């Protein structure tokens, strides 16, 4: 496959001296460059530099084009969900309809760009011309590849294609018709000829009528022309006439027109003669009207219309090549020409390749290739990294979207439909979405959770938790750690909570701690925190025996941090000193054991008060339990 070789584009950076080495840094969607030098050992005193932010000519930042991206995203997702069980043939109308949807989105975008007034218009002109070209190419691809019309219908579709993209004739016609004497308007004959070139014979006849009225002397000539125009056969795909029958009819008509030309029926009227020659497909005459045709592909279609209306798809390339050569003369084909030629040659891969090279946005090639792939029109090449062309292009396109602050969400769907590498690309890029707000973080998380991207979920939650800890928002940090299932971090934050309590005597973020539920089981320390708070609640509600039981279990379960043991014992004191006996004898024994254990470690600590209280309690408890209730 020959490649359109394009020299790399040079971008000049003002403010950097030529020949000076540059340093650079890749960023999301841009690259930073700056002037630098050899690793000199010391200060060079050569002053500071500017850092230049260089970006690709990114269309994703254009607000009008954004609509294009958003709406085509819908169409794309719809296309992916078409059931695969039906044979491709019966899905053709669906594919054609989707193709038309894409095209109408392009056109809507073009219209909007056109209506942009003022200085914006100059900025958008290039966008419009690109979209024009894109729609032209896409339409042709639809006609040739997706609709894949057979001989007969093929020409009719191509005729539609050309008419759609060459409609300045209507503007001209309007101007002519609105004038006082249309037949004498200077554009009159241009309009007539344009109609003929487009095969719009009805319109031609109507126009010629006006001229005929002005030239009563040539009445018979005009009548003849009118008759010839009216008799030109057009193939009717839905009709009963076969292609062969049509061909015969057409040849007969062609011969008739030829006869009239040869016997000089139109010799006295140069214009009518020209029309006659066009009807016969006279290439020289056609080429004399390059201005009206304006493009070689228009020339091609007109040529086919009047020379070979039953052209088969396989014959197109020959006519296309010769048309291009004849029309362009010595001119060099432009990228658009090569692309269209490749289409006429049914070389889909070449079309895609050339489009990729000529356009700086992957949107077009990605969506078109995807559609063609669904139509099973792409042979699967074995690609180097195991994926295929469709996926390669979609990945490129979606990666480009990812740097945009809102379009990245569309990109997710594209990755979802790339079976080989979509997931790993998504994992890599979704981590980089800046988590500006909690809301955005939750949005990103939801996307990751839906796809079981557990590592990304953990990482994002950890980042948010860390950020919260640094800003001393312990409650937020805790809930993020829990979400990350990060036991270690949850432990850390629980410690901080407990330290805070020791310092201030109260808990912050009570709501969160009170509603931990089963999540408190994530880490021992967290469980302790939750249960300890519960203890405080019970105590506050004066449910002393429950509080006591809980306190005891906290001590014996050994989930309390060492630093907290004295605090717990101190918490037990008021319960021990209540008038009513709260701790049973057995419970008191357990408390005593704990104290004994811990005194070993807190040997410097004065536990006299606690020992005394425990002893007293034990005594009371024994008495209470030993007393018979009468």
């Amino acid at each position, binding site marked *: 496959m020959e490649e359109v070789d394009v020299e790399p*584009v040079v971008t000049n*950076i003002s403010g950097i001296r030529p*020949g000076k*080495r540059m340093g650079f840094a890749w960023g999301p969607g841009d690259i930073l460059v700056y002037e630098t030098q050899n690793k000199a050992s010391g200060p060079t005193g050569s002053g500071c530099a500017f850092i230049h932010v260089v970006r690709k000519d990114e269309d994703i930042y254009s607000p009008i084009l954004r609509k294009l991206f958003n709406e085509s995203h819908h169409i794309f997702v719809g296309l992916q969900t078409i059931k695969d069980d039906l044979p491709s043939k019966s899905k053709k109308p669906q594919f054609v309809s989707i193709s038309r949807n894409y095209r109408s989105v392009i056109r809507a975008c073009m219209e909007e760009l056109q209506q942009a007034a003022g200085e914006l218009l100059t*900025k958008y002109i290039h966008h419009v011309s690109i979209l024009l070209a894109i729609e032209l190419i896409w339409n042709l691809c639809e006609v040739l590849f997706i609709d894949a019309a057979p001989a007969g219908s093929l020409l009719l579709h191509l005729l539609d294609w050309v008419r759609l993209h060459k409609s300045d004739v209507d503007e001209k016609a309007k101007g002519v018709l609105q004038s006082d004497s249309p037949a004498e308007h200077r554009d009159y004959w241009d309009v007539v000829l344009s109609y003929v070139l487009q095969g719009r014979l009805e319109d031609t006849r109507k126009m010629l009528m006006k001229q005929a009225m002005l030239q009563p002397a040539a009445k018979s000539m005009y009548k003849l022309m009118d008759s010839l125009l009216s008799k030109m056969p057009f193939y009717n795909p839905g009709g009963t006439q076969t292609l062969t029958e049509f061909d015969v009819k057409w040849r007969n008509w062609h011969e008739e027109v030829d006869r009239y030309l040869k016997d000089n029926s139109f010799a006295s009227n140069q214009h009518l003669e020209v029309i006659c020659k066009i009807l016969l497909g006279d290439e020289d005459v056609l080429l004399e009207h390059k201005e009206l045709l304006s493009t070689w592909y228009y020339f091609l279609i007109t040529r086919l219309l009047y020379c070979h209306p039953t052209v088969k798809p396989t014959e197109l390339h020959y006519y296309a090549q010769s048309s291009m050569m004849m029309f362009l003369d010595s001119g060099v084909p432009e990228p658009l020409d090569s692309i269209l030629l490749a289409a006429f040659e049914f070389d889909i891969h070449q079309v895609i390749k050339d489009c990729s090279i000529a356009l700086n946005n*992957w949107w077009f090639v990605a969506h078109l290739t995807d559609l063609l792939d669904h139509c099973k029109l792409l042979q699967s090449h074995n690609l*180097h990294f195991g994926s295929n062309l469709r996926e390669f292009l979609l990945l490129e396109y979606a990666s480009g979207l990812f740097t945009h602050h809102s379009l990245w969400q569309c990109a997710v769907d594209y990755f979802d439909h790339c079976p080989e590498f979509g997931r790993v690309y998504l994992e890599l890029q979704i981590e980089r979405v800046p988590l500006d707000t909690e809301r955005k973080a939750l949005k990103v998380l939801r996307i990751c959770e839906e796809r079981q991207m557990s590592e990304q979920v953990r990482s994002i939650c950890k980042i948010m938790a860390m*950020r919260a800890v640094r800003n001393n928002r312990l409650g937020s940090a805790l809930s993020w750690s829990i979400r990350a299932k990060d036991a270690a971090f949850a432990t850390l934050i629980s410690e901080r909570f407990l330290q805070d309590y020791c310092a201030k005597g109260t808990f912050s973020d009570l709501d969160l701690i009170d509603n931990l539920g089963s999540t408190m089981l994530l880490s021992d320390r967290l469980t302790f925190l939750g249960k300890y708070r519960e203890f405080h609640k019970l105590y506050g509600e004066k449910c002393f025996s429950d509080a006591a039981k809980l306190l005891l279990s906290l001590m014996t379960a050994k989930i309390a941090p060492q630093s907290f043991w004295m605090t717990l014992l101190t918490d037990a004191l008021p319960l021990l000193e209540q008038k009513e006996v709260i701790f049973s004898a057995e419970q008191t024994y357990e408390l005593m054991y704990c104290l004994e254990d811990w005194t070993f470690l807190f040997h410097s600590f004065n536990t006299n008060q606690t020992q005394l209280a425990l002893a007293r309690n034990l005594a009371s408890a024994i008495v209470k339990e030993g007393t018979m209730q009468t």
Partner: protein
Amino acid sequence: MFVARSIAADHKDLIHDVSYDFHGRRMATCSSDQSVKVWDKSENGEWHCTASWKTHSGSVWRVTWAHPEFGQVLASCSFDRTAAVWEEIVGESNDKQRGLSHWIKRTTLVDSRTSVTDVKFAPKHMGLMLATCSADGVVRIYEAPDVMNLSQWSLQHEISCKLSCSCISWNPSSSRAHPPMFAVGSDDSNVTYGGKVQIYEYNENTRKYSKAETLMTVTDAVHDIAFAPNLGRSFHVLAIATKDVRIFKLVPLRRESTTTGPTKLEVQIVAQFDNHNSQVWRVSWNITSTLLASSGDDGCVRLWKANYMDNWKCTGILKGDGSPLTGSSGQPSAMSTVVGSSIQTSQNALNGMSAGRIAKRASFAPPLRQLTSPKINQSPAYY
């Protein structure tokens, strides 16, 4: 491509490194003026310097961000033979209003006896770990076991590479199939000393790093080295800046379970570009490893891309033209024109349409062909 904006870096001397943070919202710059500056990007895309402080007593060669999972942490390395770790402290509210933040030094790593030429944090799955390399030919790997206490770093490994080191790159792969790995480049210019790129791999059994491979074909001084982000591939891709740009593929070979040494790597050269026609100083991959950038003494930054057949090509060049900076930032050249028509012709095509016309199906003419097409100015999307 176009210059979207230019930031006055305000350093008093040469800038040696610029580093974006993980999310692309902050950047750090370091300079021969011995300071580091941290910049924050506002919502409208403007960069503001939120911190600037002296970090070393010599030129600062590199600055790098740790993964945000560890908080806001920077590491810098310098000619003064040290590397340092810095953490941002959330300041007083009035500081925040003034858009300032404070960074404090958490530790100084003083083990090197010569200029520390590079510092890089290890992939996050390895914990908070960093590697430094020095002109004395030693790579040092430090770890902070307690993420909440950044003042405690311990030297875990000291690896002598025998040659003066200039750059180091960690393999970002977190796949279980790939043990931790880094590549180190040497700027020793004596070509008889053999391969200037060494690959080291961590061995779970010996708990040490051992040399897995030396790239013997790289005999000239290496100035920069970069592993590409791993996209689920089984092999590794490494870019090297030396007298030219080279891209290597390192394929781990399956080995017997009985061997205890590092993985055997098959080394293949994927591409070699001498377009810079001079020493290449930096190479770096973009996030998806689809683009490689290199800068050389020819005063250019070149962008390299592989098409779907893995053929590499230069897709763009950035070069200084010495023109003075204008006040306004550049304008994009918009979408590239495919037809190469002039603005005038497009204007005509558009003028043909009346603004108020609302047709059911808007029909447009493709721009008129010029007999002499203007030079096509576009950035090819090389696929």
